[in-house]
């Protein structure tokens, strides 16, 4: 039976927070790794929380909350990402963040490069790897988020690792294009 029947508004909020609390940091890291910058990550996190809360009544069991939450984040990200191609429609906000994304003083070059390299990998592989390495989900939990079998998840993670090592090792993407672009743009401005 869905949780809906027993929920008042306050109960819904309390129960949601109870399930959500242990996952806050893990969701935050997942969102940040997906979007590569804190501003977008905050947006993704807020959208995820609001969407998850809105449909919380339809959740069939508490055990499914983790996969429900991360699945929601993945879907929102994928939908947003489809609309934002690198050569896509100009977005003022995104453009303004170009210079900020990779000059985050709090983020090491290694991490910037990791995020940047991950952004070029196939989406399902990247998500499986992030859920496993960054958010600390088990293989079984990732199966539920991605709605695929165990072997598929293992294969995705393995391929993602191979690809990552290859990209980071061979191409040596030391300087992100974004940082370069911000430099050239700055030169244009005056």
């Amino acid at each position: 039976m869905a949780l809906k029947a027993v929920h008042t508004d306050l109960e819904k909020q309390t129960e949601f927070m109870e399930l959500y609390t242990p996952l806050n940091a893990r969701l935050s890291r997942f969102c940040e790794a997906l979007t590569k910058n804190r501003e977008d990550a905050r947006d993704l996190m807020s959208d995820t929380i609001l969407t998850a809360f809105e449909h919380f009544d339809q959740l069939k069991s508490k055990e499914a909350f983790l996969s429900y939450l991360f699945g929601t984040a993945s879907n929102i990200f994928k939908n947003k990402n489809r609309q934002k191609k690198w050569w896509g429609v100009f977005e003022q906000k995104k453009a303004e963040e170009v210079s900020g994304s990779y000059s985050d003083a709090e983020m090491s070059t290694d991490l910037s490069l990791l995020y940047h390299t991950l952004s070029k990998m196939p989406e399902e592989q990247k998500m499986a790897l992030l859920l496993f390495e960054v958010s600390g989900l088990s293989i079984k939990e990732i199966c539920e988020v991605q709605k695929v079998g165990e072997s598929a998840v293992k294969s995705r993670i393995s391929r993602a690792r191979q690809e990552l090592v290859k990209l980071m090792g061979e191409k040596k993407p030391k300087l992100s294009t974004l940082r370069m672009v911000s430099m050239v743009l700055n030169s244009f401005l005056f």
Partner: protein
Amino acid sequence: MIQYNTSLSKAFEEARNRPALMSLVEVEDLISIGKPSGGTRGWKGLFLAAAAWMILISGMYLYPKYIKHTRPKSDKNFMLPQTEKKSSNTQAIVKPTTENTLNEEENISQEPNKLEKLGLQNPAIAHQNIANTRANTKDIFDLSNVDGVYGPMQLPSLKEEVALKTEVPVLAHARYTMKGWKLSSTESGDFTVGIDKNMAHSGQASAYIKSGKTNFKSAWLTQQISAESYIGKRIRLTAWIKCKDPDKKAWAGLFMNLRGDEFKYAGFNNMYDKNIHPSSAGWIKCELVADVPEKTREIAFGLYKVYAGEAWIDDINLEVVGKETPLYFPLTTEAVDTSLVMTDAFQKALSMMVNQPSNLNFELLNQKNEPLHWYIGQESQHFRIYGDPTIQQNGKPSICLQSNGYKNDWNTLLQVCKAGNYLNKHIKISAWVRTAGVIDHASFIFRVDDFTAGMRPENVKEVNFKGNTNWQKVELSLDIPETATSFRYGVLLSDKGQIWMSNLNVEIEPLNHNVMVPDYFKTPINLGFEE
């Protein structure tokens, strides 16, 4: 099982330890928005609130007069009589007031009684507007806790104002004094550039970039030339670079950027992977080899410097080489090879341009009280722009660029207009400008941009101000050559102070002669920094 190398393991470790983006309290607040309130349930309430906001915002855009300044009907008591004075050495005409004595009127007051003294009507409303503006930006400008910052903005006292008064000079800006070169940086005040006559690889001098910043801030000394003579050829850029840095992270490198039409770029490299570190002893020869794609319009090259320390460059050479010379021009991770790519950042740059001069009277402001179609050169916590209802020119609103004086930082408030409709025309721009407490200098600028010469002094006109000046009319004129891509005008402020501009006017006249692009910008110049 794939093994991660050290830097990958370190990166994942860091990713796992990133602080949470939202606290649990924030999450709780977020989901509480949809809770019942005043008989309206959950998301319905949120939807109604959003709808109300949308109606309000649409109304403000449809009827911008409701968001423009509240200003007094007349400030004629405030204006002083005008006389004209023509400068002999440039086309700039400066029309100062008869007396630059501003006495107590000049102090930019925030108090109602002082506003009354200035003869401004409706002081209570004007005072409230200023108070609101100040309140909205209080956090930005309260810099008392930031190292090396002078603290919150304080205008000098009347006595100091008198001491600061100077003649209005008309000068070429210091940034253009090194022939053929310009300095750009992520934060202008953090870097200095110049000629070092005590350090040279050969000849008498070299150029340097110096910085005290230890975080990721970068600067580049650039020369831009036309790509015309190099299209389809393989080119080799060489230079000697030396680096002296206290910081391990610091490095310098030779860079080259091939730029196409409409700000698309064809390639870029700054030697990140072969950069010059402080540990590199003495002068190091650097080299980049690239093919110049067909559609390239401009080649920019020079010295790139990151973090603290000092780097020198000398004996640069750009030459055409045979195809047997191995390429060394890795185009970053998104190798774009010879195709020209339009990036988000350039799209932003293009989107900032107007097709014709717009909002010249600053009557259209956004909700942050900033003028539409104008933009600030670089986002900085040390500068702000705002519509100022208390400072008017002949009843017209003004816009203010203000700085708290962070080191030698400077910034601009400009409008960039596409040149397309104005090619082969002579453009005269006039504006009214006034300043307060300008420690270094402030300017009104008019500049024409083209691909063949991004920064040649002939393309720039400016009138400089210092200290406190009352409203002065400035007029600057330039020819728009066929090679122009855009032209820009507005104010520049260096160091501490405030500059207002108001009541701009653009006159267009036909051009009855051809504008010559100097030959020297077709090939590199001053590569040994001897000029």
